[in-house]
């Protein structure tokens, strides 16, 4: 399984804060996972296609080439604005 999390504006645009997906060769990288998720509809395509989208794998910032393994936690969110 992969656990996928969405935060802030991305979460709102998707109407979804988390989902679980079976790990598969189609989800072997962040980029592949993103392409797969963007198939879900126009709001998924828009929200996950934003150029400033940030991704974290297992709670560490990652890039789209990062490889995924079963059990990983992947999060997508906009640039941070705390403080």
């Amino acid at each position, binding site marked *: 399984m992969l656990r996928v999390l969405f935060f802030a*504006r991305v979460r709102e645009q998707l109407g979804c804060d988390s989902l679980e997906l079976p790990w598969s060769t189609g989800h072997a990288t962040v980029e592949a996972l993103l392409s797969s998720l963007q198939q879900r509809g126009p709001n998924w395509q828009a929200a996950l296609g934003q150029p*400033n989208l940030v991704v974290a794998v297992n709670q560490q910032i990652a890039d789209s080439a990062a490889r995924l393994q079963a059990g990983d936690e992947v999060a997508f969110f906009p640039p941070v604005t705390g*403080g």
Partner: protein
Amino acid sequence: MAAAILSAQVQEQTFDPGALQQVLVTADSGAVVTFTGHVRGGAGEAEVTCLELEYYPGMTERSLLEILEDAATRWPLLAAAVVHRVGRLAPGEPIVWVGVSAAHRGEAFAACDFIMDFLKTRAPFWKKEHGPAGASWVAARAGDDERAARWQSPADGAG
């Protein structure tokens, strides 16, 4: 020197800067620098009636501790702590507190400034402003990235 005492806390409830500062003071603390951020109310069309703070439980605390550890590597700190609130906050309320204690003021000032810059640009928090015209997510500020870029090397930052 002994390892710095580091602490990162994410919480809904408010905090007391004076009480937090006392915890930082060790026998060798010559200098204590603190930063407290308050929710700004804006004015007119930009009036903010409520600020909502979202975070990533687990990653946020880890990220804050990593920033403190990075600061303690760059400067000889005795203690450093951060408290960040989440949930719904009213204008004027304290939202974030960073405190650093060290033997001398140069490193205490630099480390506190550094921690705030990295907290603003690295720690997963997101602000949503509620006002008369509705709610909107706060956009990341280029100025925050520029401030964070000042700390490219420890030597620059310690200057």
